[in-house]
């Protein structure tokens, strides 16, 4: 359904589904507000003071009529509400379930700009280039305060938090340029924290990628950082230090010293770099120093990309 297309572009897979819900809500609202208003007007005209309309109760009226009326107008809204709830919750669940083959793009928000890093190392500010028809998953974090990534044409929004990764999944369905807003108040120039999402055909997109090479792929940049920060001294293949191996780590469960288990995802790796002693792997001593304050959010995402690339190479047993 595309009930609102003339007014607001409908450029993602979720947009059409959300619009169907919004259209249903519009229709219900018009009916309810219109119906009750009309009833009030009719009553007001018919039974205004001094009118001759009868005020007598109908003869033989049903006892407990009042209670039946109440039951009716508790029951009907309840059913309608539950229907809307389920519908909206299913869509919400859909929005939050990323496709397995999604193209991952990193977003770092700061006062007051959006910094984007593509897997192959392309970087952009306040612009996001994506190919049409391909599921996208944004991995987002903030360098300072809370921001919110909002693309009205896609009907999606997600707050971007400092100290944490949030993700946003969408599939653009229409080529074009769409506005990107920061929707969570973030300080002085909040209203200038805008950008553009540029949806391109796949061939245009690969042309764009080729024309804007970064400094190597994100994983390659991460590998360079891995050496520069001295991580390889302990975690490298030839190291004599007893440190957890990172090959085949990403996406797999890790047993911790306190007996619990976590999945090695971006958040885990980020925490391990900044607060290494908070989640010590079982069988290792907490000797790793914290890199807090030395490594930027963008660099952490590069390191994550590198460790992730290690998973692909040697995860097969």
């Amino acid at each position, binding site marked *: 359904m595309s009930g609102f297309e003339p007014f*607001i572009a409908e450029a993602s897979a979720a947009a059409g*589904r*959300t619009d169907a*819900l919004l259209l249903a*809500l519009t229709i219900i*609202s018009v009916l309810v*507000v219109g119906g*009750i208003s009309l*009833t*009030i007007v009719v*009553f*007001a005209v018919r*039974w*205004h*003071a*001094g*009118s001759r309309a*009868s*005020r*007598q109760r109908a003869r033989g009226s049903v006892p407990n009529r*009042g209670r039946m009326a*109440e039951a009716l*107008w*508790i029951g009907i*809204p309840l059913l309608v*509400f539950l229907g809307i*709830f389920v*519908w*909206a919750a299913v*869509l*919400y*669940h859909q*929005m939050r379930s990323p496709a397995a083959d999604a193209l991952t793009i990193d977003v770092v928000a700061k006062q007051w700009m959006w910094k984007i890093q593509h897997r192959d190392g392309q970087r952009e500010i306040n612009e996001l280039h994506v190919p049409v028809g391909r599921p996208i998953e944004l991995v987002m974090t903030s360098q*300072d*305060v*809370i921001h*919110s990534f*909002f693309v*009205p*044409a896609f*009907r*999606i*929004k*997600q*707050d971007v*938090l*400092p*100290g*944490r990764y*949030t993700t946003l999944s969408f599939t653009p369905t229409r080529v074009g340029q769409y506005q990107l*807003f*920061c*929707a969570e*108040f973030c*300080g*002085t*120039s*909040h*209203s*200038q924290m805008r950008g553009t999402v540029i949806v391109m055909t796949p061939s245009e997109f690969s042309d764009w990628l080729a024309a804007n090479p970064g400094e190597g792929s994100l994983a390659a940049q991460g590998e360079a950082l891995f050496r520069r920060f001295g991580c390889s001294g302990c975690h490298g293949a030839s190291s004599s230090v007893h440190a957890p191996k990172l090959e085949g780590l990403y996406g797999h469960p890790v047993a911790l010293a306190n007996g619990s288990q976590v999945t090695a995802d971006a958040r885990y790796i980020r925490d391990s770099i900044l607060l290494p002693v908070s989640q010590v792997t079982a069988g290792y001593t907490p000797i790793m120093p914290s890199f807090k304050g030395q490594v930027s959010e963008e660099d952490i995402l590069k390191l994550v990309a590198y460790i992730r690339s290690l998973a692909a190479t040697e995860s097969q047993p």
Partner: protein
Amino acid sequence: MTSITANGGPSYISAGYTLRSWLTTRDHKRIALLYLVSILFFFVIAAVAAAMIRIELLTPAGDLVDDDTYNKLFTVHGVVMVWFFLIPSIPATFGNFLIPLMIGAKDVAFPRLNLASWYVYTLGGLFVVGTLIAGGVDTGWTFYTPYTTMFSNSHVIAAVTGVFIVGFSSIFTGLNFIVTVHQMRAPGMTWFRLPLFVWAHYATSLVMVLATPVLAMTLALIAIERLLGVGIFDPALGGDPLLFQHLFWFYSHPAVYIMILPAMGVVSEVIACFARKPIFGYRFMVYSLLAIAAVGFMVWGHHMFVSGQSMYAGMVFSLLSFLVAIPSAIKVFNWTATLYKGSIHFDAPMLYALGFIGLFMMGGITGIWLAALAADVHLTDTYFVVAHFHYIMVGGAVMAFFAALHFWWPKVTGRLYPDGWARAGAIVMFVGFNLTFFPQYIAGFLGMPRRYHAYPDEFQVLNVLSSGGAVVLGVGYLLPLLYLGWSLRRGRLAGANPWGATGLEWQTPSPPPPDNFASPPRVEGPPYAYHAEQAAGDSHGR
């Protein structure tokens, strides 16, 4: 103003004219007037801020004031409107004035606490005025961390101190009302003979007493975190910013019910009186008030659907939010049913009350949109939300405040205002309100984020419409000031019961004597003993 009541004794007004007699009074009616004057002062401050916001938004560029000033303007507008006008608006004034009268008591249970509440309110207000003079605060009324604690360069601590302090005034008021309703009812005034206005305030008081301390402590933690650089909300310190949002909304969502429940009470009184009929489904109205107050505590997470909260928590909060809408719907249906076969008069209070129903309905039903998860993802933090809560808080609570002001003005002052002017005021306010805020629904639907100092060009038409409507709305607010002010000296004497209303407050002279009743009243039957059948033939029923 009338200085002598019908039976020759002094009224509560003429009981003393010195400033001292006002500032040390323990009479709930005088404290109500102290509050009335104070909240109107803050209403003006917040309204001026709103006017400047609307002027700024006439053009897409940020050209009237700079961005920091704009951010301070909407923060002041929010902070002052929410805590210094809307929260105390009906309870501290009309609730204070009327609850003892309606239940046949001489005063509230703790008169000194009542006066203390006003002083505490004033002290909190001084902090906020001080914040303004010092240069303002730019965090938004929601004080989200870590912006508020670590990044804002404005006077956060003074502002949160003011809000912290004012919280205690509402705790005092709520505590007083609960005990008053429990202990001070006149003989024969059983629980199910209480007017819905009293029930509404009872439910409101529960929320005031149980939610406000959470806000107070949360703001104290904000102040400590900002002052000392340690705290549980900043991720850089190992804390979690969503914890702040949970705690903040645990208060601030129920706070909306602090505003709207008393409004529902007012409208129930007015509708019954001017339809000349008992309220339809009285007990359901009572239960729905209590249900709103209780379930209202469990829905706060619907402010956080895109905040990074867990998806499952989002679903639970969404479901509960749909459930809390049911009792509100019941109330709208019951007010409508009350009109059926009534003998309906269209005096000014009734016009305000009918306006309330219309606007509250719009605000309520768009609340359903925002409770629906996927729809909220698109609409939250846009002007759709701004329009939604203004329909509830201004369209609902402020319309009801004016309904109350017009309905009980004769009781409070002893004078009648010119009804024609008052009806015109109600209509101007209703039209102006819709002109101002309906375009904001559309702007939000099309994606305009809130708290934007400058905005993309395509939203200009809607913003100009909204600003134009604000002028009409402003006129709507000024009119009552004029004719009500005029009536204080020139208005006709009202007599004890100008509307032919039931309820104990109408059985004592206007304005009431200091002790409220010459002899203790006895209640013999249920409230709202109106008879439309008999009133019908008589076009004025008075």
